[in-house]
Structure formats: structure tokens, C-alpha cells
């Protein structure tokens, strides 16, 4: 099989958006789910959360950051190129219901998977307060889209180049300390952000949901590579998740398992960069 790239554009330094023609996937997609893609015959399978989908036009949007070999190779692809594999939608959809007021938090490239949830929560009747953050203003993605889709949008940057000078968790804390009655907080971003956010919201007793990003291979529950510990129980993030109760997740285990192949990852990237230089 192959899946045509309808559109590919860079939306921030090293961050790219890609619309992929996959009508069956687009038709079945729901907020909170992910896909697994493979570029070509020698590529690995990587999971990416669905950032948007259009059932009528038959495409799924993914947004990714250049991190290692596969995402760098993906970043070089152009409109009309084809991906060899694009399987999905995978995972359990987000549990979107009318709860009242919901805060949706996206950190860095994690803003992308938050976007379909903002739309879904709002459609379900919630008041949606979005909080997005990045290291600096150039790395903020989907700001306009998020503003249009949310009732309120707050921005934070680590260096203060835009919005609140500091972390998204500071902003969330301010909202929780105000009179606002918040029913749920959804946080998607780097594991360290999700860990800090979980610790911050715990004393407030507000339900907090995170979307975990462990290493995956098949994404269909057949290997357990993505296993995480939630409330002391082992769960497979690809089928039981990727969303879990943040207050029950063992983030230290998640982060140590994510670091498992660090040396292999850098070897693979170096190998790739040498080959690329050879091509020029």
C-alpha cells in the first residue's frame, strides 16, 4: 500500500505539518487517537497522534518535530511523495463529554494532538480554556487555530518572548486559583511537562488526563513494548490508552523506558547523516 502526501509544510523551526491521503483512516478517526507510519521498506514504525482529520476529503493531518533519523527523513519529504504505511486510527478515543469547563494544555509539539480535542470538547458543549506553551514564540504552533477553536486561549513561553513568561503549568495554576470551576484538565506534551502538571493539579483534586507517548512497534496490543504502569497496574498504552489518569501514572518508569534506545537512536541518526552527506 502507499499513502500520498497531499501537503507538507514547515510550521515552526524543525516542526512540520503533513496531510496524508488515507480515506479509510480519516473516516474512522476520533480525537485522542493516533496512527503508525512507516516511510519505506527499511524504516521503523513510528506512532504520531492525529492532529486533524477530514473524512470528506479523506486526509489525516499529522504534526511532528525533527528528533531523530525517521522524523528527519520524514521532514525531507514533499507534496506528492508517498508513505509506504499509514495504519490507524489506533488507541482508544478521548473520553469527550459535556463536563462544564475543561482546560486543555499543549506543550511544544504536543499542541498538535490537543487541537482536535479542543474542537471535540467544545462541540460536546464544554467551555474550553486552552493553554499552549513553547520554549519561545517561534516554536508556538497552531496559535490561530487554537484561538478560533477555544473559548479562551492563554500562551506561555519559557523565555517570555510571548504571553506569560514561564511554564504552562503556572498559567493553569492561576486559573485553578481563580474562581473558575474546572471539571477536567487534559495535558499533552513532553513527559516531564505531563509529570510536573500532574503534581501541580493533584492538590486541587481536579481530574487530570495525559496522553502518554511510550515506545511503540505494532500499536495494536501484540507486543507490550508500550507498557506503562497506571495505579500499580501494567497497561498497554496503544490499546488501553494513550490517555490515562495523570495522578496514577508512573512517569519515572515512562521516562526511563523512553531512554532505552538512546545510544542506538544516535547511532542511527549519525549513520543517516553520513549517508545524506554522501548523496550531495
Amino acid at each position: 500500500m502507499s499513502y500520498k502526501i497531499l501537503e507538507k509544510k514547515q510550521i515552526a523551526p524543525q516542526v512540520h505539518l503533513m496531510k496524508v491521503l488515507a480515506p479509510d483512516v480519516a473516516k474512522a478517526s476520533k480525537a485522542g487517537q493516533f496512527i503508525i507510519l512507516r516511510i519505506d521498506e527499511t524504516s521503523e514504525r513510528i506512532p504520531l497522534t492525529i492532529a486533524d482529520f477530514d473524512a470528506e476529503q479523506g486526509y489525516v493531518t499529522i504534526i511532528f518535530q525533527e528528533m531523530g533519523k525517521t522524523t528527519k527523513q520524514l521532514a525531507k519529504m514533499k507534496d506528492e511523495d508517498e508513505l509506504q504505511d499509514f495504519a490507524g486510527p489506533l488507541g482508544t478515543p478521548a473520553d469527550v463529554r459535556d463536563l462544564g469547563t475543561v482546560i486543555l494544555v499543549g506543550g511544544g509539539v504536543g499542541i498538535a494532538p490537543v487541537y482536535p480535542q479542543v474542537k471535540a470538547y467544545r462541540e460536546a458543549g464544554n467551555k474550553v480554556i486552552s493553554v499552549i506553551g513553547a520554549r519561545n514564540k517561534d516554536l508556538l504552533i497552531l496559535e490561530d487555530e487554537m484561538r478560533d477553536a477555544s473559548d479562551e486561549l492563554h500562551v506561555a513561553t519559557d523565555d517570555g518572548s510571548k504571553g506569560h513568561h514561564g511554564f504552562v503549568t503556572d498559567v493553569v495554576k492561576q486559573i485553578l486559583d481563580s474562581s473558575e470551576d474546572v471539571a477536567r484538565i487534559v495535558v499533552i506534551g513532553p513527559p516531564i511537562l505531563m509529570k510536573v502538571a500532574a503534581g501541580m493539579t493533584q492538590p486541587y483534586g481536579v481530574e487530570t488526563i495525559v496522553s502518554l507517548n511510550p515506545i511503540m512497534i505494532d500499536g495494536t496490543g501484540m507486543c507490550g513494548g508500550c507498557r506503562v504502569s497506571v495505579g500499580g497496574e501494567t497497561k498497554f498504552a496503544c490499546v488501553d490508552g494513550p490517555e490515562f489518569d495523570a495522578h496514577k501514572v508512573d512517569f519515572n518508569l515512562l521516562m526511563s523506558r523512553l531512554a532505552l534506545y538512546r545510544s542506538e537512536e544516535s547511532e542511527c541518526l549519525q549513520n543517516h547523516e553520513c549517508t545524506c552527506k554522501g548523496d550531495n
Partner: protein
Amino acid sequence: MASRQAMPHQDPKERIRNFDEVALGYSKEQALAEAARCLECKNPGCVQGCPVNVDIPGFIAQVKAGNFDEGIATIKLTNSLAAVCGRVCPQEVQCEDLCVLAKKGEPVAIGRLERFCADHERKKGVVAPVQAQPTGKHVAVIGAGPAGLTAAADLAKAGHDVTVFESLHDTGGVLTYGIPEFRLPKSIVKEEVDYIKQLGVDVKVDYVIGKIKTLDELREEYDAVFLGTGAGLPRFMGIEGENLNGVYSANEFLTRVNLMKAYRFPDYDTPIKRGKRVIVVGGGNVAMDAARSALRLGADEVSIVYRRSEEELPARKEEVENAREEGIIFRLLINPVRILEGENMAVKGVECIRMELGEPDGSGRRRPVPLEGSEYVLDADIVIIAIGTSPNPMILSGSEGLEVGSSGTIIVDGSGKTSLDNVCAGGDAVTGAATVISAMGAGKIAARTINKYLESDSSMG
């Protein structure tokens, strides 16, 4: 009586450094000599012992006469995956067990002769089969493993329009992600699948049933459905330390090695941890495959840890022998109780307890009982859990009214029919983890049931 022709093998000292096929196959002379041992019984037991009832004396007679083309044609009348079956079937408990020669000595090497015929044909190039007259009926097959491929082939031969839905990016199921290259070269699996495609079967990969479409939706769109979804959900032991870095399910370890070709990293992008001291927990074929793969990835020492004794090892004798020859250490009558943590949440060892065998349990095998106070530690940096799998429940989400047993297996009657009107099932999805050939047998029976149902155009019940 002439003795059984030995199978040429790659030298153990050489083969532990590569993923090439271990068994090299019979020469023409060896095949002729082995075929000459067959007595061509009037009431052959061997055929009954074969789950897909290959006309064994028939094809062996053709080999005897040097008509290898006819030999493979005879096999293919009932078996669409001959090159696979000749390699991975446990013939010693199937066809060869019921060979009349087995009573007094060594049975005819039926599997090796089947393999010889299939390989003979592959060398020449497989001839495209004649396509059947279309019936206008549409059948969906879920899962491209041995059960699904066999069912798809038989359904296509009957003239139905068959679509196979596979969740992974490649076909073959356990033949592709589970059984290593050194036992079953992937090029052979690919050729066998190509043959089935030539019968007119359409194969859709990357297609996760239960997510992209539900079973109920497929039942609306197709005249009949076959479920061959296997038993791909790995079991863990539930002991402390099982989530540490360096602990793999056998499914993950073998999927990385076989499907993703991690043994060719970094030419292939998928990485795998190459341990120095590897412990594989379990005693089945999957445990042997994982252990022998770990050895080929460069481990200094690979041990099989199994809670019963040699006699109860569920793996094929041949594979146990191959593993021993390669230097795999068998640590029997012990069981892990805890996985020990070293630096950076990585595995540093396994605490085990010695076992003794008590009374027979429900499976008829003697129950292993731990010996209190006999705990000791084995060093390890990789632990692979190969204690079995069960059916994956995800595929069945959105299937109203499908009856499922307590362990998640799909319930069927003797004809492969499920509780749903136009749905059959077979293979590991029904039995739990079993053999390739029994899955193929179930695929055949279910295809026959579906064919009858589509002919009569009435309910399968």
C-alpha cells in the same frame, strides 16, 4: 529397511553468527532415496495425521518416479503453503507419527519430502494458477496468518471475491513476525503469499479491524466473514520488575528481529538491545526462537528457564536439539520470582526458585511446585518472557453477539461457525496459541463451511 535420510544442516559454529536457514534441504538423490522408503500403504495413517489431509503416498510415489512437478501439484490440491509446512510443521506428532514405519523404526521423512517438492517448484518459478469462475459472492478474511491465508486460498478457488484485511504492514502473521528467518526464510513466505494473490485474493495491509471498521460493518458489506486473528496478546508473569528496561515479551523481541529486521540495524531503522547474558522464560517453540535469535545477535550466554523438566518441554524436539547444538543453556525445573533492578531501571538479574514435579494438573502434565527457600539469582541484562499468548480482544470490539470463551477465544462449532450467522473463525483465535498446520486445517474447514453457506444462500446453521 534403509535408514532415514539425514537432513543437511549449517554447521552450528557458523550458523550462530548468521540468520540464514539452518536446515539446508534434501538433494535430488536424498529425496529419491527417502521416497523409496515409503510403502505406499492402502490405508495410509499419515494422511489422517495431516490436518489438511495431503495425499502423502500419492505425492511420494510421484517423487519416487522423479516427477517432482506432479508431486508438488498433488500437495497443492489441499495445501497452499507447502514450503512453509515442510519446514515448520511438527510432523513427529502429525503425519510422521502415524507412518507405519514409525512402529518399528524411523518414519518416512514426509515433511522433508514436502519441502523438497515445494523448493523444487520455487527454483523453477511458481506457475500462476487458473482462476475460478466468479460466483459474485464477496468474502472478508480478517488476518493474513496461516488460517486466513489458507481460508482465502480455498475461498478464491471456489470463485468467491476474497479480501484479506491485515493489521500489520506485511502478510504472513506469525510466519512473518514470529518464526525467525533461520527456520523459515521470509522470501519463502512472500512467495507463498504471492501465489495466493495470484488466485485473485486482494490483500489490504495496515488495516486494523476493530478500529478502522468493526466486524458488524464488515458483515454488512460482505456475504461472509472469516476470523483468523490469531492469539497475539502476550502474557506476562505479573512478577516484580517486569517493566524494567531490558524485559521483552517474546512477541516484541521477535517482531523487532523478524518483521522489522532489527538484526540488520542500522541498515534497518528499528533498534534492539543486544544483551550479553540473556534469559528466556518458557519452553515452547517461541522460547527456542527467541533464545536462538538472541544468540545470533551476539549474546555471550543465553539460557532457557523452564519450570518443568526436559520431558515436558513443549517445543519441537528438533528445535530443542538445534538450540542445544548452538550452545543454548537449559535451566530446567526453575521459575523466576522477581526481576532485579540495576542502574537506570535496567535489568541486572533474575531471582529464581527451584521446582519439583507434583501430581498431574488439568493439562495432564505434572504440576511444578516451588521448593521453599531454594531461591537464587541468575545474572542477566535481557529477559524475554515467552510463556504464551492469548487472543487479542481489540479485534472483537464492535462485534455484537459474537460468543467468546473465558480466555478470549472465539467459540465455534465443528464446522468453524461462530455464534454469528455469516461468520466463521479458526486458528489460534479459536484454540489459543497452537501450530501453523492446525490453523491451516481450521482455515480449510471454515472455508468449506462458508462455501456451502454461499452455495445454498441460506443460513450456515
